[in-house]
């Protein structure tokens, strides 16, 4: 869906982005992760031509992005900014409708779509006519997302969309975001420097440093097959938690003891992460948790200790 080839950007003497290449498949969520100033935003903005590259090529949907006018291109790509970038002089409804207006949709179509998005994003209809500064940070971010989704673009670019929120709201919105069906179909490139967030949302992560990509892989690959010391160092602090998040119960399936209590029916899929399974076990004070493997309807009942034990076993196998 998005193909980036040998992309570079210099600001005078600064090599903000230095010869990077990556692909994003349709429906894939790619996260650009890295320290401050490593070139994430610059990379993102080159995709919708807010910044013109010094060298390199970008194709979206097989077509080079300079084939059409920048305005045309941008109207077809959703964009969410860190500080929402909502228009203070437009109401919520007008903000959401911006792209549709530019595309000259008719009134009814616009109203229907706004209504739909407000519902999906849990925004009460009473907010349609208020101004952004009357909303909470979380609500503003939802409106920002609705604005980006208005014209249902296949590609979405997000620059630290949750960056300005407090940790609690941030966590909540992130969860809603994950559950939003509209987003599941989208090809998304998202920038963050929050490691947890990256592992939480990513199909794949591009870890960047000084304008270059250090490693491009799945969260598990970054954890268990780090390309170099920078990657290890970068993930060190939160390693344990990340590993719980990077591994699914189904990854451990064969190694888990095959105990199932007959009377128990399981409605939890084995595709949850180990972290989530542990969360359920502790939060609900359960001795054991039954999970089902959707592929063969096999059910296993596991305890906290068994899960931890199996996970460490798995980890040892991986890193060796």
């Amino acid at each position, binding site marked *: 869906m998005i193909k980036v080839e040998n992309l570079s950007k210099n600001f005078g003497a600064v090599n903000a982005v230095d010869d990077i290449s990556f692909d994003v498949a349709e429906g894939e969520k790619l996260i650009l992760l890295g320290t401050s100033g490593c070139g994430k935003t610059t990379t993102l903005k080159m995709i919708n031509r807010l910044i013109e590259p010094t060298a390199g090529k970008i194709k979206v949907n097989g077509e080079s992005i300079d084939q059409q006018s920048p305005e045309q291109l941008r109207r077809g790509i959703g964009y969410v900014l860190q500080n929402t970038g*909502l228009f203070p002089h437009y109401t919520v409804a007008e903000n959401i409708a911006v792209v549709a207006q530019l595309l000259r949709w008719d009134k009814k179509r616009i109203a229907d779509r706004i209504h739909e998005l407000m519902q999906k994003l849990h925004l009460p209809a009473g907010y349609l006519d208020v101004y952004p500064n009357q909303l909470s940070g979380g609500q503003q971010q939802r409106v920002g997302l609705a604005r980006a989704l208005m014209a249902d673009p296949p590609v979405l670019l997000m620059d630290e969309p949750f960056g300005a929120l407090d940790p609690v709201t941030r966590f909540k919105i992130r969860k809603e975001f994950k559950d939003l069906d509209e987003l599941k179909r989208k090809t998304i490139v998202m920038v963050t420097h929050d490691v947890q967030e990256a592992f939480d949302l990513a199909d794949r992560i591009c870890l960047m440093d000084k304008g270059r990509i250090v490693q491009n892989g799945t969260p598990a690959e970054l954890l268990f097959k780090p390309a170099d010391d920078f990657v290890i160092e970068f993930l060190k602090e939160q390693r344990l938690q990340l590993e719980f998040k990077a591994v699914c119960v189904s990854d451990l399936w064969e190694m888990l003891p095959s105990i199932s209590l007959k009377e128990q029916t399981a409605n939890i899929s084995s595709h949850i992460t180990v972290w989530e399974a542990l969360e359920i076990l502790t939060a609900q004070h359960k001795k054991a948790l039954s999970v089902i493997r959707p592929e063969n309807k096999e059910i296993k009942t596991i305890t906290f200790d068994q899960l931890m034990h199996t996970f460490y076993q798995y980890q040892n196998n991986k890193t060796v």
Partner: protein
Amino acid sequence: MKEGQQNLIDFMRQESDKILAQVITHIGLTFTSLIIAILIGLPLGILIARHKPLAVPVLGFAGIIQTIPSIALLGFLIPILGIGAKPAIFALFLYALLPIIRNAYTGITEVDPVITEAAKAMGMTYWQILFKVEFPLAMPVILAGIRTATVINVGVATLASLIAAGGLGEFIFGGISLNNTNMILAGAIPSALLAIIFDFLLSRVQHINFKKARIGRVTTSVAVIIAGLALFYLIPSAYAGKLTAGFTPEFMGRRDGDLGLREKYGLKIHTVVISDAIMYKAAFEKHLDVISGYSTDGRLKAFDLVVLKDDKHIFPPYYAAPIVSDGALKQFPQLEKTLNMLSGKITDSIMTELNYRVDYLHQSPEKVAQDFLIAKQLYQQPRNANNQGTVRIGSKIFGEQYILAAMYAMLIKGYTNYNVSTKTGLGGTKICFDALINNQIDVYPEYTGTGLLVMLQAPPQITDTLVLDKQKVYNYVKQQFKTKYAISWLIPIGFNNAYALMMRKKQAESLNIKTISDLTRYLESK
């Protein structure tokens, strides 16, 4: 106080037609220039907000214009644009530019770049970003600039009256030179009210919630209001007559002036008010046809003008003589003798010549005075023994008075041990005279006719018996000033600087106008 208030109201009621016309002109001048300033200033402000390197020179230039004193700016413009509304509007336009450009620049620059980037990222074009995002967000700041410009313009527009563009300055400056408080207030109060009202209205507009009111609607309504006010102004210009007269603010309010012309001659002529500094040139350049001048003015000759004969005698003789407070005569025993050294020494033609050198050749009054005294062998080096007090010499604000004041200063320094301080350029007759009465100055040159009609306000029965005889007028004012004000008229200097109506010689000849009555008849024909 009560009496004063009563008088003001009476005055305003009596002059309500004039006040209304002046208000209309004032509003017209203010808003015509404002519209032009907005049309040019807004795009310019936006341009420099987009191309920052241009900001410093453009704002710097507009800032420099702002610091040019308004009178000087008007003066610069006359050779290029003549007199009347054109240079006035242009000058007001220049003054209005800075606040408008600066605020448009600031307003646009202060729009959060995150917001404009968001607009760009949504797919807005350059112009869509400008009109849908930047402009509305900058609107409150832009309006504040327009508001400032409006208030500045209402104030500066009072000066338009000095170059025949009309407006409330006609009363203000007429009142100042005649020291007529009612007249000053009749101009000042409406112009202050205009400033307050427009400021208030624009502050309302500024605080309209731009989020709620659609930007387009507000802009159009503001534009319509301003354009309407400007159009307002075009109405009075419809009555331009055959000839145009330019009279000084002082002449407008004097009985031996516009009032007398209307009363005695029944003269009906399209009249503009203009400062005497530029009046002669304006007549020469055919911006004006008839002007109120002084018969000894040097520019009469330079600009080839003729004096119309005052066949009904509204202008009394104006023999110049120093007038001195009796207190000063006592304090400075040698003063009278010294001042009288000039008496009889300057004839009409000599004075005209001296004025010519100052008004037209732009020599300094001091040099002209010194040259004259040397030629008459009256000049002596200053004694520099200034230990017997200081004589304060005043003068009105035109060349002849400057020359005379300089001569007196030189004579006193050369022949006495008094020190001298000069207070030249006192705005008008009444100001000079009040300074003398209130012991701010000791002496200044005055004209018998002015003493008769302006200070003494002699009733017509008396003036009718006097006007033909210069000696009778002199005796009358001398005696009256002595008893009424304790002021002495010394011996006349010799020349008669009469008020006079003047026209270009060529035009007067071709229209066969020799007297003021001829002029009245010519204007009445057809």
